[in-house]
Structures are given as structure tokens and as C-alpha cells.
């Protein structure tokens, strides 16, 4: 049970209003995070490509600020250092709106007191705003909030290689030249000039030349910047609307804007500070991904993005069901979240295990459109006896794409080497193998566990059953997983195995394999290179695998491998093996995961990994020990 109350001076109300207006351009509801020394308001947009946060200092911004947690009522596991909730921005803005104008001098606001009710004795989930006006007028607002676990975009400033700072009005002049319909903004510099180009990614029919968007590029002198420390000719593209939202607020408060970024397809952060307020806007960038130089583990762009997102649905579900138990994470993420999220902040450990995988990160496809597998190419993989129910999904899945930027190493590194207790897993897998798994696989939902096996026994057993593609290190390039005696292991399914393997097997030839994956729709089996260790791919039937009690998967007719789009953990009784759930792709990029997959009852909710949307931000909850500004600086990295 947390208690939070603070009061604001009229000037602070204006600032809060401005901040809320700015946040309102990113999303519908604002997240409050109260800590002992600050209050943070943040918004993560629906597509998870932009994150805006204002941190108000407890001492400087507020007239008074008190935050406390009653530890007696705490259930174990609840974070004690902060309280998080979510409120609709519209409601908040309307509270403070009109107060800003201050037309009526007599009854203008003199003070604003905000109090949070989180007590079981009182009406729960209420934020009470009391505006104390002149002539004894008191305006009282009771807003409902929703306890949530706030997600954060992670951005490591120390690793940002490019940085510039400028007066926002210069940039505002730049954006004034853009057509209103422009969606994206490309930034680069050359010859002492920085060029801002607006463009639109909307695909226009060939004949409609006149409907093509106007491209506007504005070149300003680098001297207009306070400082400009960025690579020349490095094109970085961001969403123009987000950019304008940032500019509008920065210009309003006359704060100097600083941008930090590394490479395209990695987050970019705008930041500026005021007295008692620090603002941060982390937006995802696009552009030609730069080949990773392997220097920093934080460069792993796409894996972070995809994997980082993982816990989100779980958390949401948890919140809905156990509203008060806000911070209790589902069991799987405890270990998995670390392994799946080798993020800037948490990657100290991950980087050790990832070092061998860093160097062979595959070349990333530059175009984000290449995310999507062309529908035509998929045909050849169709299996004739497709069930009707699959057909529906198939439409959505035509857009499926694995691997936007090809950074599979997250999976690889996290799932492969780091799993402890290999022996027992091998044993477990062997056990599964012996349970007579049908020879074919339903590809619509696939469970795969790729552990380096220490016994060849398990591998042989599995492979002979067609469940597992085991690829021996010594085998030659034209690797054909032992499936000769298995009628179900036709090229299609074999390919899908291999493709699956490449996703998570961290080995020095991952690059080769990943290429095969990306063109996998066309590739033949023989194109796949051998891998260095054993892999197992276990395919489970789509509908049943989510039941927690099922340990033994049964396999039916193989379907199209392209139904794979996400991974969930598989059940196991011996140890928490890495489980992955393959979810069907939503047709809408930003849409939710098909509800069917999410709603299934399960004791142990799986992690749901959605398609790697590489233009999303890396997200995560704020670490416990994180108190200081800026919000995304993560001291935790130093921890073992």
C-alpha cells in the first residue's frame, strides 16, 4: 500500500499541463511512477516505437512531496521503492486545462494538491486532485487509475556514439517546411551541413505519380547546433510526428534539445532538462542498419527489440488478474527475462556469454519492408492437406516475417549456452523422445528447445523420430537431418526445422544459416550449412501445447513453417527448460496477438514473443535500484 501526495504551485501546474499535452501526443494514458525522490510521467505509444518521459524532481518541482510505502501490508515480492499507475491523459489535461489561462484572477488556482488513495479502507484506485483557488473555491477531481507495471524504454547514454544539441526553434523552422502529410524524417550530415529530409513510406500506386508525397529536405549549417558530434553521412530516420511533438514542447519551454543515438535501427533519445524537470524521449529509428562492429553488446538492436518486448503481454495479463500484486512476475521471466533480454542495462552478464556470438551477427537487411515474407513465395511450402482453420490464420501470416534485422543471437546466446544442467535436460528430452511422438509436425505452433546435448543417444533417438534435427558438427555442408526413414520429414518440415534451428543456435556459422532463414521460403535443404552443435526442434500441436500439464507433445501433419512467428516455453517437469511459443502473426503489425493464443488457460503463462518489430523500442521495467535521473541510466549493469 503506497501513499503519495504532493502539492503544486501555479507555475508547476502550467509545466505539468504542458508536459501532459506533450505526452498526449504519444499515447492515451500516462503512467505515473512515484519514487521517493521523483515522480515520473511516461507514455509508451501503442506501436512501442516511441517513449516519452518527464521526471519531476521531488524537491525542486513540488511544493511538497511525500511518498511512502506501508511495508506491513506488502505482499512478498512487491517492489517497495515505488508505485506505478496509469491514468488517462485526457482526464488529467481537462483537470488542468483552463487553469492555465487564469483569466479570472479572483478564482485562479493558488495551489494544487494531489493525493493518491491506495488504501483498502478507502475507495481504491483513486487519484484525488484538489485545486485550491481564490475566494475559497476548491475544485475537487477524483480520477481512477489503473495499477500497472510501467515499461521503460532503455537507452544507454554512455554508448551513444552520436550526439548533437540545438535550440529547438531552429528545428521547428525546419519542420515548418515539411508538408503536413510527411511521416518520416531522415537526418544526416555532410559538408558541414545537416540535412533533414521528410519522406513518406506510404506505397503509392505506380500510376499515381501526382499523389506521391513531396520530399522536402532542409539543410542547415552545423554551426546552428550548439555542438554536433555525429558521424557524417549517417542516415537516421525517425517518425516525424514524434519529432514534432518533442520540438513543440522543447520550444515551448525554451530548453536546448540534445539528441543521442548510435546507428539506425537503434533507439534515439532526445533529452532536455529544466529546473526540476527532466524530459526524455526515446524513439526508434530506422534506416540502413549498420553492420555490428561487435564492440558493444548494446549494439544488438533487433534482439533487444524483439526480446525486450517479451514480458509485456505477460505483465499486462498479470496486472489484470492480480491487480494489487503489481510487480510479481510470472515465474518464467525470472530466469528467462534475463536470458532473453541482453539489454543495455542488463547485459553485463549476457555479454560474456554472447561474446562468441557477437562477431557473426548476420548482415541485417536494411529495408524494414523486408520483414515481410512475400506471399507468393510461400506457396511452394504449402502442404496440401491444410486444415481449414489454418486458412484463416494463413491470411494473417502471409505477412509474417522473422527477423527484421537478423539479430538472432539473442535467442541463440540466451537459449543455447546459458541453460544450465544440460544433462538433465538431455535426459528429459530423451524421455520425451521415447514417448512415441508422431512422425509429423504441426508447424503452426512449434515448440523448440535447442540445447547442446551432451549425449548422442538423445540426439539419435530424437532425430530418428523426426522430432529433432540434429546437426552434427562434423557433418558436411549438405546437411540433411536424419529423416530418411521418416515420411513426415519431407523437405518442407525439414526446412522448417533447420530454419528454426538457425534462429536460436548460436554457432559460428549462424550467418550462413540465417541467410538461409531469410530466404528460407525459397531455399532448399541442402543450402543449409552444418551447425556446430546439436539442435533439437520439437514441434507441438497448435491447440494443445499451451496446456501446462502436457509434457509430451504429439505431432500431426506438418503444416507450413511460416506459421511460426513467436515462441513460447514448452512445459517440462524436470527443470524450467526454455520454452517458446509460436504464435501466429497478426495481420496488423501493431495489432494484438491473436486472442486465441492468449486466452488459453495456463498455469504458467508463457512468454509470448512477437515478431521482431525492429522499429520498436527496447522496453523493460525499471530496475529496483534505479532511483536517479535519468530514468534509463542503468547502474545495474555493474552488478554481477
Amino acid at each position, binding site marked *: 500500500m503506497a501513499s503519495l501526495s504532493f502539492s503544486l504551485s501555479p507555475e508547476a501546474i502550467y509545466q505539468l499541463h504542458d508536459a501532459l499535452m506533450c505526452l498526449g501526443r504519444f499515447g492515451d494514458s500516462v503512467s505515473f511512477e512515484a519514487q521517493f525522490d521523483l515522480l515520473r510521467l511516461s507514455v509508451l505509444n501503442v506501436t512501442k516505437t516511441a517513449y516519452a518521459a518527464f521526471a519531476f524532481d521531488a524537491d525542486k518541482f513540488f511544493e511538497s512531496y511525500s511518498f511512502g510505502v506501508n511495508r506491513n501490508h506488502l505482499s512478498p515480492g512487491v517492489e517497495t521503492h515505488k508505485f506505478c499507475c496509469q491514468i488517462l491523459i485526457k482526464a488529467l489535461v481537462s483537470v488542468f486545462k483552463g487553469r492555465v489561462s487564469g483569466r479570472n484572477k479572483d478564482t485562479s488556482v493558488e495551489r494544487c494538491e494531489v493525493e493518491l488513495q491506495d488504501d483498502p479502507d478507502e475507495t481504491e484506485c483513486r487519484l484525488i486532485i484538489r485545486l485550491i483557488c481564490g475566494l475559497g473555491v476548491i475544485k475537487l477531481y477524483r480520477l481512477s487509475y489503473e495499477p500497472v507495471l510501467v515499461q521503460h524504454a532503455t537507452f544507454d547514454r554512455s554508448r551513444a556514439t552520436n550526439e548533437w544539441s540545438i535550440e529547438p526553434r531552429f528545428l521547428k523552422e525546419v519542420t515548418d517546411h515539411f508538408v503536413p502529410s510527411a511521416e518520416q524524417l531522415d537526418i544526416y550530415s555532410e559538408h558541414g551541413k545537416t540535412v533533414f529530409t521528410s519522406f513518406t513510406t506510404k506505397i503509392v500506386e505506380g500510376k499515381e*505519380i501526382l499523389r506521391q508525397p513531396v520530399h522536402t529536405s*532542409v539543410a542547415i549549417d552545423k554551426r546552428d547546433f550548439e555542438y554536433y558530434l555525429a558521424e557524417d553521412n549517417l542516415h537516421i530516420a525517425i517518425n516525424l510526428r514524434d519529432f514534432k511533438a518533442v520540438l513543440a514542447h522543447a520550444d515551448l519551454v525554451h530548453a536546448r534539445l540534445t539528441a543521442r543515438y548510435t546507428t539506425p535501427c537503434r533507439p534515439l533519445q532526445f533529452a532536455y532538462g529544466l529546473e526540476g524537470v527532466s524530459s526524455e524521449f526515446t524513439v526508434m529509428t530506422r534506416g540502413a542498419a549498420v553492420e555490428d562492429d561487435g564492440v558493444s553488446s548494446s549494439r544488438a538492436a533487433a534482439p533487444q527489440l524483439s526480446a525486450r518486448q517479451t514480458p509485456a503481454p505477460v505483465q499486462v495479463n498479470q496486472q489484470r488478474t492480480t491487480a494489487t500484486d503489481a510487480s510479481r512476475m510470472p515465474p518464467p521471466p525470472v530466469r528467462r527475462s534475463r536470458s532473453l533480454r541482453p539489454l543495455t542495462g542488463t547485459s553485463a552478464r549476457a555479454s560474456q556469454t554472447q561474446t562468441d556470438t557477437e562477431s557473426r551477427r548476420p548482415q541485417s537487411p536494411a529495408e524494414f519492408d523486408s520483414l515481410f515474407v512475400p506471399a507468393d513465395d510461400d506457396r511452394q511450402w504449402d502442404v496440401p492437406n491444410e486444415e481449414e482453420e489454418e486458412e484463416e490464420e494463413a491470411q494473417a501470416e502471409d505477412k509474417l516475417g522473422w527477423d527484421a534485422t537478423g539479430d538472432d543471437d539473442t535467442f541463440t546466446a540466451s537459449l543455447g549456452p546459458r541453460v544450465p544442467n544440460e544433462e538433465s535436460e538431455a535426459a528429459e528430452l530423451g524421455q520425451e523422445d521415447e514417448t512415441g511422438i508422431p512422425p509429423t509436425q504441426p508447424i503452426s505452433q512449434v515448440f523448440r528447445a535447442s540445447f547442446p546435448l551432451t549425449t548422442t543417444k538423445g540426439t539419435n533417438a530424437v532425430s530418428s523420430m523426426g522430432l529433432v534435427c540434429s546437426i552434427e558438427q562434423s557433418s558436411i555442408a549438405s546437411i540433411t537431418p536424419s529423416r530418411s526413414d521418416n515420411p513426415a520429414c519431407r523437405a518442407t518440415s525439414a526446412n522448417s526445422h533447420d530454419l528454426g534451428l538457425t534462429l536460436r543456435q548460436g554457432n559460428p556459422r549462424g550467418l550462413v544459416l540465417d541467410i538461409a532463414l531469410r530466404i528460407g521460403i525459397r531455399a532448399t535443404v541442402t543450402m543449409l550449412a552444418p551447425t556446430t552443435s546439436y539442435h533439437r526442434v520439437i514441434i507441438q500441436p497448435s491447440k494443445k501445447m499451451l496446456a501446462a500439464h502436457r509434457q509430451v507433445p504429439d505431432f500431426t501433419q506438418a503444416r507450413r513453417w511460416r506459421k511460426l512467428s513467436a515462441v513460447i516455453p514448452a512445459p517440462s517437469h524436470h527443470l524450467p527448460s526454455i520454452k517458446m511459443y509460436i504464435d501466429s502473426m497478426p495481420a496488423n503489425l501493431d495489432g494484438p496477438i491473436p486472442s486465441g493464443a492468449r486466452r488459453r488457460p495456463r498455469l504458467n503463462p508463457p512468454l509470448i514473443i512477437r515478431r521482431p518489430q525492429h522499429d520498436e523500442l527496447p522496453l523493460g521495467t525499471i530496475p529496483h535500484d534505479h532511483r536517479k535521473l535519468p530514468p534509463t541510466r542503468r547502474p545495474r549493469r555493474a552488478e554481477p
Partner: protein
Amino acid sequence: MRFRTKLTNAETFSKLTASLSSLGKTCWMRLEPGNIRFTIIPDQGTQVWAQLPIDAIFDESTYVLESNSGGIINLEVPIGALHRALRSAVDAQSAQLRLTQKGRIPLLALTIRTLSWAPGSNALGITGPADPGNTNNPANNTNSTTTSDRPAGGPGPTSTSASTTATATSSTRPGRERETVITQEIPVKVFHESAVEGLHEPRCRDPDVHIILPNLSQLKAISERFTKLAAPGQQNGKNPSIAANIANTAPKLELSANMHGSLRLAIATDALRISSVWTDLVNPSLDPGQLSQGELEQLPSERMRALPSDDEAGWARVRIDGRDWGRVLSVGRLSPRVVACFVHETALILYVYLPGTFNEEDSCLTYYMNSYAA
């Protein structure tokens, strides 16, 4: 095919495109050695045929036009986008328009160079030495021309103070001139000459009445007021299909004029009838050089002139759509001289002469409006 020129009068060009863009989305732009023509032929509504001499908006000395079809280039231009792009050029020091191509898409590329004054953090506003990194700037050759008119904005720095504090420029940010280069690329379509051969200006019989319109802003305000008054009540507006239906059958503005300097604007519905009358307007006489005396007397306008001013038969009347009329009147931003030619119950033709051009007669926008039946 080549087209390249500097803009001399970006503001006029911008205003022109603004008023044109209210009538249609795309514009046929015909570049000729001496003239530019803009034509908008919407599916419904007013046609406009505009012709301007090159020097009205372009710099004749830099005007380059080459093409296989007799030095004429026909373009289809999204006029709204062109206008939006030209807005960046209004306050610019220089602007260049050229036809280019990116990939396979032909473009009108508008390159605009603006200069503005950036106040520095040191209060004196002292300029430092030129940035050495800027010397290899490809735009430098034009830079030299633009820097000559340096005191365009802000406090002009004195050369003496610049020398004294040149060392301080590294730590403090001096006020200085900022140069911004804006490139607007407007996708266009290139027409072959044969594609536009069949397009001709509308022809109609000689007008019954020609009269110089009063101030367009006044006319526009009153027209819009009338249209609003006569607009169907809001209770009908809830159903869009009904509203659209009503829009088609909405009362039309009735515009009439006689050869005695009177113009009448009226609207009539079941509930109301209002009209405004302007008097003492000018009925310009036709150029006697073009017509013989006999022809001149045969003209319908001369017959109308012969009728007495209080005779209702001396009025030529057209009915036009209020919204369309409002769009046409948006040309008023150019503050032109407008001659309206009334063809009784048939058509209204507006000759819009742009002011301040070298040869006023050459720059003329012609609007053709059909009259609705009563």
C-alpha cells in the same frame, strides 16, 4: 527536355498557386518560351485558363527551356503540393525551380536558399571568422552573392568589433547569419504534346454585359454570407446523404449586371430573398482596334447598353454555386482587376488581370463558370 529557372516573384507565384489549388487538385502547366500557362479543368465547377509572361514570376535571364516538341513542356502538377512548396520560398533570398528526375519519377525540384539572423549568446552579436569547414561547401559560390546583402535581418555586425573579439568566438556563440537550404521535390507528370492537343479553351457567344467587379474581398464576404444564410438548416445536416442531396439543389447565387455600372448579387429561397446592388461600376469598352465599327455595334453588349438603366431587360443574369464562387474569388489575394462578362442565363467569364506585371494584358487568368438553370 530541360527546364530551369530562378523565381523572381515567389510570392505572386505562391498566391497564384494558392488560388488555383482551390479549384482542383492537379493543374496542367504548360511551359512555353515566352509564357507559362496554368489550366485547371475539374470534373465539375469552374475551369481556369491562366497565362502569364515568363517575367511575371520567373527570372527571364536564367530561364532555360528545351524540349523536342517545339520548346514546349507540358506538365501535370499537383497544384496544392506546389503551393505548399512555394510557401517556403516566399521569404527566401533565392529560389530555383527545375525539372529533374529521381528514379523514373519526374520532379519539379524547388531549391530555396534562405538567410536569417541567429542571435548569439554574446550580447554584442559579433560575427566570428568564417567556419573553415564551410569553405568546401558546394553552395559557396552562391553564398558569395547572397552575403553581399548581408544586413538582411538583425543587427549588422561591424567589421571593427569582429577583429577585436575574433578569439572569443570559440567559447561564445556569436550571432551570425544562418543559411538554410530547402529542397522541395514535387512529383509531376510530363505530358506529350499530343495528349494536350484536344484541350481548348471553352468558347461561347459574345457577352451581354461586361463589367469590372468591385473589391473581391468585399464581394467574397457578402457572397459567403448569403450562401450561409440560404444554406439548409442544420437539422438536415445530420444525414449525410440528405445533406449531399441538398447541396446539389441548394439555392444558387444569382449574379446579374447591366451595362450601366450596376452589379447585383442575390439569393432566394422559400424563406428569404436578399440582394445587394453595387452601382457606379465601370463597364469597360472593348478594344476598338480588334473590331470594326460595324461589328462593335452588332455586339449584344452594345444592345444592352442601349437599354435604359431601369429596364430589367438590360440585366444579364447567371446562377452560380455559392461555394464554387467562393473558390473562384480566392484569387482576390492577388488583388487583381477583374472583368466579369455575363452571358445571359448561360455563363459567367471572369478575366483576372494580375497587377504589377510588366505587361498587364499578358498575364490573365480566365475563369469559365456555367450558369445553372433556374
